[in-house]
């Protein structure tokens, strides 16, 4: 396993490598492969019957659709937030910078009941929206709100370092060559930020697909309407339908892994073109 070309005098390779692989194998690799084995023991007809049933398909549509939209919202506003934090000085800037991480630190169940409280008919936001005839809590819009909340830090945190790294001289060069502010932004700044923006977007998207805690309270969990895919896994488990839960999990895992692959490729691409 060890690269023979490299002579390393530091101690502990065998011990640390052994411990690391054992820990990961026991906790992650073996349990996840057992899930696959278990899924493989289902017949194809059984598998399809579960994962392609109308109720489950409706949940994919909601999960993927709301996750995608939430990531788009976060890409736009995350850009604005990151830009303001890096480029401008204003009161409370440090406080704002610190609070961006709140969705990471806040337990999802707590976020869930808090969002439900403000979006319900009598809540701060819900009461304003209901004047316009819009219902947020217990609708698909509520799912979108929860997924936007939990994905908020990703775009900001991936863009911030990239924005700080941008060479001011490039911008100045563009402007001295006669580019307008808008041209400098779209032709010089935006292209160099694209890999980070795309990474942040995909991270938020991937996180939203698997999210459970913050959504179940605000969604109301109406069949065919506001059920997300992770909720259906839990519902199958509670009905002791282990085969069904496994089948849906495999589909959800597959979607997550594709996104993870995209993230890794984007990061590779970003490094290559730096």
């Amino acid at each position, binding site marked *: 396993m060890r690269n023979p070309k490299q002579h390393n005098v530091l101690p502990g390779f065998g*011990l640390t490598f052994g411990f690391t692989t054992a820990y990961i194998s026991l906790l*992650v690799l073996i349990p996840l492969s057992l899930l696959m084995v278990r899924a493989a023991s289902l017949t194809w007809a059984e598998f399809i019957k579960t994962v392609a049933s109308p109720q489950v398909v409706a949940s994919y549509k909601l999960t993927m659709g709301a996750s995608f939209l939430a990531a788009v919202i976060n890409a736009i506003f995350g850009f604005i937030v990151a830009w303001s934090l890096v480029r401008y000085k204003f009161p409370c800037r440090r406080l*704002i910078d610190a609070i961006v991480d709140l969705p990471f630190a806040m337990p999802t169940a707590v976020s869930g009941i*808090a969002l439900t409280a403000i979006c319900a008919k009598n809540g701060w*936001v819900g009461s304003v929206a209901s004047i316009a005839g819009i219902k947020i809590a217990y609708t698909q819009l509520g799912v979108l709100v929860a997924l936007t909340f939990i994905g908020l830090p990703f775009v900001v945190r991936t863009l911030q370092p990239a924005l700080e790294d941008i060479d001011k001289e490039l911008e100045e060069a563009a402007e001295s060559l006669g580019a307008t502010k808008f041209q400098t932004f779209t032709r010089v700044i935006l292209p160099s930020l694209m890999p980070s923006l795309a990474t942040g977007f995909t991270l938020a998207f991937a996180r939203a697909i698997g*999210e459970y805690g913050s959504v179940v309270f605000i969604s109301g969990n109406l069949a065919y309407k506001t059920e997300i895919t992770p909720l259906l896994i839990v519902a199958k488990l509670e009905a002791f339908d282990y085969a069904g839960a496994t089948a849906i999990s495999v589909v959800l895992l597959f979607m997550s892994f594709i996104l993870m692959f995209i993230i890794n490729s984007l990061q590779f691409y970003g490094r290559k073109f730096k």
Partner: protein
Amino acid sequence: MTSKIAPVILILLTFFYLGLFLVLPLAAIFVEAFRKGFAVYLNSFNDEYAWSAIRLTLLTAGIAVPLNVIFGVVAAWCITKFEFWGKNILITLIDLPFAVSPVIAGLVFVLIFGRQTFFGEWLLAHNIKIIFATPGLVLATIFVTFPFVVRELIPLMQEQGVLEEEAAVMLGAGGWDIFWRVTFPNIKWGLLYGVILCNARAMGEFGAVSVVSGHIRGETNTIPLYIQTVYDGYAAGASAFAMATLLAALALITLIIKSIIEWKEKRRER
């Protein structure tokens, strides 16, 4: 003219977006918790199930976090101090829990230890309870939170390289001494940050523990699960939010410690 207006608009949008999505929910927790007054708030904690949930959360995090800290340090040492084949695969595996839905993290342990399997029956025959008991909660929590410490340490230790440690070896120091006297002082703030993040997530984990817990009141309900039980139950409102203030306070403390650490780092760089 535009150069004066644009910053103002962008800053206002920042305040609006973060105010709407972050400040309002946070404020709502405390307002809802104290809506019926301070006495009602305090009375929410006058419940044996509430206290057993608090104890169970402390116990679960008390086991899961130290194990993940040990793993994090060992794995980061292995990955940053040595070159070996398959390193990138190992790093990808470490990131895996971030890509797996917490619900699935819980499900895998139900599939292994649940009654429907051969192994599960054997456990049952020997009266060992894992699922719907504390060990299952600990396992699910470890799964969900183990990348936090190692993810914090890897970039930090990569940046520091191996020169200082190699010098220590030349001077005759053993592995243990090298770690405590050379590596540890360099990584202690990053490590602390990883630990508090890991802890916040461990105490607040909902999806994964919800699947393995079975929601037995007073036995397998952690604080987040207790919040759900109360929220869905008869009393709703106030007491669920009262318990939520504990976790919200934990989240705020986590953010404060994080900011202090970042501030210290920045000052050291200057």
